[in-house]
């Protein structure tokens, strides 16, 4: 028993940080209806600034704490509210998720650009000395980090309970989550209520971040991502509603992780995976077992019907004449591009464009699942990785050609996707996003970290595995292969989109009630679109690995899944065109940034660019690039077809449609 307690009790401080973050998530959700995916980044930001001020600027700990937690953290919350989430209060759950994700990806990248070469080691503790063991419980030493975490969590929770239960602000916050527009009709300033909630939750994020920091020798964002999944799990059991349940589950999880790590054999895959897999198991358990989580995010603002409909894509708007011209131009571009690639293209750019083709295939899987299926999956890089790893395994163990292995890999990725789809069959929106991000983290920490890699080293792709001169340094054979594969995938996506399945999916997105009411099997559609998307991602993953000549777990990590989403959402998630532009845009910008002095950030700058690009998703759910194309096409069309009678796109009963005259929603 003593042994058991000796493992359990040191888990409590970890559990306290999980609990704090979970409480912050619940609070924001309760007041604003936003499940704040950027929360881990907010915690990281405060911890980063705190550590920076103490270690690099040599400020006293108390002053650094005031600046980074008391001042900065609520300010970030307020900025999020004022500049981002306030504008999208009425937007759908995907728009809110995308906004949070873009910040989750963007903030660490901004930090990496702003602060280079700083010391992130040995983050200090705010209250008690981490080096001192204050007392022992059941033989377990309790040091300053633990005491600080428990004391700070307890104080925060009591303060919060008072705020929510016994103040009028707490009551208004609870009203605001139903519909901010409705409480405003009652004469309450919804903006102020929501802003206070953001400030308070920001403060909690900062506090949790700073509390967690000394537990690790070095401040790394990935630890905060793990923290966030644990907090999501606790918040999910609380149905994003009950603060006591969130705290209880958070603390229990911290304790359980410690016990598991104590009893499982040291250094085994089980032990290293316990920390990240347990939150996943707890999260999936909540998503599957807690009935309230199934409908989460499905509830609509009662005043949502005043919002205009989403605009149609450019292609459906174009006059047939213009459509023909544009199609011919695309073919000309394709031919010129292909000929250039096969003849004079400099080697550097040849590599860039080849990678662009491979990325385009991966991104097409996002077109399928998000653009057509209307679901946000945050594990597309993982699915690509499953395909690549499977193919590599078959090649290295059985000597199977990577091109055939790639198809098997695609099937494996599809299988993983189908399993995820079945596990999430009753989930939509939020629940699905949570489940997929958790799955991505688990794959990172278990399969990708362990299978046939030595200390996480990538597997090299050898020409013996591929043949046909595809790994030749000139890259022409690869270009032909990638072009053929991309074309096949585009045709697949287009045929599905224009066919019955695409129409069923569009019906489902439009109104799932009516879709099942006419006989569409929603479960089957959900599984089907996941499976297809998984297969395409798997093929893309193999292609990417051949292009990079290695199967690298880094390439398929969870953070790339998020980056992929923000990239595709920026260019256009509804059309294959958008995916291809995303693929090429991603690699071309990456290449261009190598010409920029590296102190300006390099790859971080790329991520920041797309992260902020993705913020336009709310105003232009079809993609900012797609929106601009539509605008210019319309202008061009007016010029080109002047004098001829063109049927104007019909608006509500003959008027001008809302989407033809500029930004559609909010911003």
């Amino acid at each position: 028993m003593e042994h058991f307690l000796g493992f359990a009790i040191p888990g409590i401080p970890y559990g306290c940080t999980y609990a704090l973050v979970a409480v912050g998530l619940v609070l924001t959700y309760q007041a604003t209806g936003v499940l704040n995916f950027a929360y881990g980044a907010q915690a990281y930001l405060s911890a980063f600034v705190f550590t920076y001020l103490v270690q690099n600027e040599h400020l006293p700990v108390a002053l650094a704490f005031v600046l980074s937690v008391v001042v900065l953290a609520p300010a970030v919350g307020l900025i999020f509210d004022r500049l981002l989430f306030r504008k999208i209060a009425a937007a759908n759950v995907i728009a809110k998720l995308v906004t949070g994700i873009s910040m989750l990806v963007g903030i660490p990248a901004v930090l990496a650009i702003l602060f280079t070469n700083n010391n992130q080691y040995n983050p200090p503790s705010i209250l008690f000395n981490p080096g001192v063991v204050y007392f022992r419980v059941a033989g377990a030493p309790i040091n300053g980090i633990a005491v600080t975490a428990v004391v700070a969590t307890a104080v925060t929770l009591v303060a919060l309970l008072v705020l929510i239960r016994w103040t009028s602000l707490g009551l208004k916050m609870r009203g605001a989550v139903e519909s901010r527009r409705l409480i405003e009709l009652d004469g309450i300033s919804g903006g102020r209520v929501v802003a206070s909630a953001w400030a308070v939750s920001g403060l909690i994020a900062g506090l949790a971040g700073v509390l967690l920091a000394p537990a690790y020798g070095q401040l790394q964002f990935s630890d905060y991502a793990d923290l966030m999944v644990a907090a999501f799990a606790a918040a999910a059991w609380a149905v994003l509603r009950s603060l006591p349940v969130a705290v209880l589950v958070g603390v229990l999880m911290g304790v359980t992780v410690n016990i598991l790590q104590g009893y499982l054999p040291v250094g085994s895959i089980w032990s290293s995976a316990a920390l990240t897999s347990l939150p996943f198991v707890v999260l999936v358990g909540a998503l599957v077992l807690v009935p309230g989580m199934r409908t989460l995010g499905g509830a609509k603002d009662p005043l949502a019907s005043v919002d205009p409909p989403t605009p149609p894509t450019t292609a459906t708007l174009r006059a047939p004449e213009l459509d023909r011209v544009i199609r011919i131009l695309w073919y000309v571009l394709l031919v010129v591009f292909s000929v250039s690639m096969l003849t004079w293209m400099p080697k550097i750019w040849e590599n860039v464009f080849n990678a662009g083709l491979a990325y385009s295939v991966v991104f097409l899987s996002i077109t399928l699942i998000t653009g057509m299926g209307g679901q946000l999956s945050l594990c597309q890089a993982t699915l690509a990785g499953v395909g690549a790893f499977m193919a590599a395994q078959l090649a290295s163990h059985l000597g199977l050609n990577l091109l055939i292995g790639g198809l098997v890999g695609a099937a494996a990725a599809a299988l993983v996707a189908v399993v995820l789809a079945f596990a999430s069959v009753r989930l939509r929106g939020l629940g699905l996003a949570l489940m997929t991000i958790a799955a991505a983290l688990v794959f990172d920490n278990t399969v990708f970290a362990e299978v046939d890699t030595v200390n996480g080293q990538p597997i090299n792709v050898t020409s013996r595995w591929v043949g046909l001169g595809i790994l030749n340094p000139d890259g022409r054979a690869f270009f032909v292969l990638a072009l053929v594969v991309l074309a096949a995938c585009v045709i697949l996506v287009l045929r599905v989109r224009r066919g019955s399945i695409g129409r069923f999916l569009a019906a489902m997105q439009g109104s799932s009630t009516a879709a099942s009411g006419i006989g569409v099997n929603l479960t089957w559609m959900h599984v089907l679109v996941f499976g297809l998307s998984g297969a395409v991602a798997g093929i893309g993953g193999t292609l990417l690995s051949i292009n990079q000549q290695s199967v690298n777990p880094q390439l398929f990590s969870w953070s790339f899944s998020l980056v992929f989403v923000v990239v595709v959402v920026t260019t256009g998630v509804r059309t294959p065109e958008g995916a291809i532009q995303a693929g090429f845009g991603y690699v071309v910008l990456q290449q261009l940034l190598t010409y920029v002095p590296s102190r300006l950030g390099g790859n971080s700058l790329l991520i920041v660019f797309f992260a902020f690009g993705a913020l336009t998703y709310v105003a232009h759910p079809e993609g900012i690039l797609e929106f601009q194309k539509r605008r210019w096409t319309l202008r061009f069309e007016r010029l080109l077809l002047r004098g001829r009678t063109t049927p104007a796109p019909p608006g509500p009963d003959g008027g001008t449609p809302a989407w033809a005259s500029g930004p559609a929603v909010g911003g």
Partner: protein
Amino acid sequence: MTGGASGDVLLRVEAVSKTFGGIAAVNDVSLVVGPGESVGLVGPNGAGKTTLFNCVCGQLRPDRGRIELDGRPLVDMPTFERARLGIGRTYQRVEVFPDMAVRDHLLVAHRARWRTGRLWRDLCNLSKPTTEESSKVDAVLGMVGLGDRADAPVASLGLGSCRLVELARALVADPVVLMADEPSSGLDVHETRELGAVLRQVQRDQGMAMVLVEHDLAMVAEVVDRTVVMNLGEVIAEGDFTSVMADPAVRTAYLGVRG
């Protein structure tokens, strides 16, 4: 036709109850609809009409009771399978597919009902509308008076036209029973009259059974064979329209008790 005889029942609702948090929305309701019969379901707001519809169509699962279509039990069947058995439905709050043209609504419904939309057909590029499908779609659109707006995006239509789109979407699947939930709500007098005429006509032409929830009693009187009145979750009267409306219990339910 009264639909009361056991051998002549298409839809049978037997002792169905549904409570929400202690409030009985539908309490021990029984109802039969014969083949080709048109039944009006009326009652004040909160009477439980839409809840009963949701139980029949599968959006809600009743706490107790049996529901059968042609002798087949429905309660454990998911919504989409009920639709494929021929239960068509329109909704109180319009449920159209905002990204689609009018014609596509009908095509989708037809393919979902007869399960002709297959992935392999899409992949082989075989999913263009067949002549059979197109003529069916055109016929139904003509019947409800949407022929000239077949290719318009539904987002460009007004509420009245959207209700017609819903109706056409239900009709194109050749339902054996149509559950129409307040089809006239939000329509003006003229549109309501037109809609009533369409309902009556399609019901006669296709020999389809219909359950109509409606607040516009003039339309109910014109369209239905038999009227069922619900109040506070229970059936309080049943019979032909005029005699039901003369029932004192019905008058109380609608107008309240004097004094």
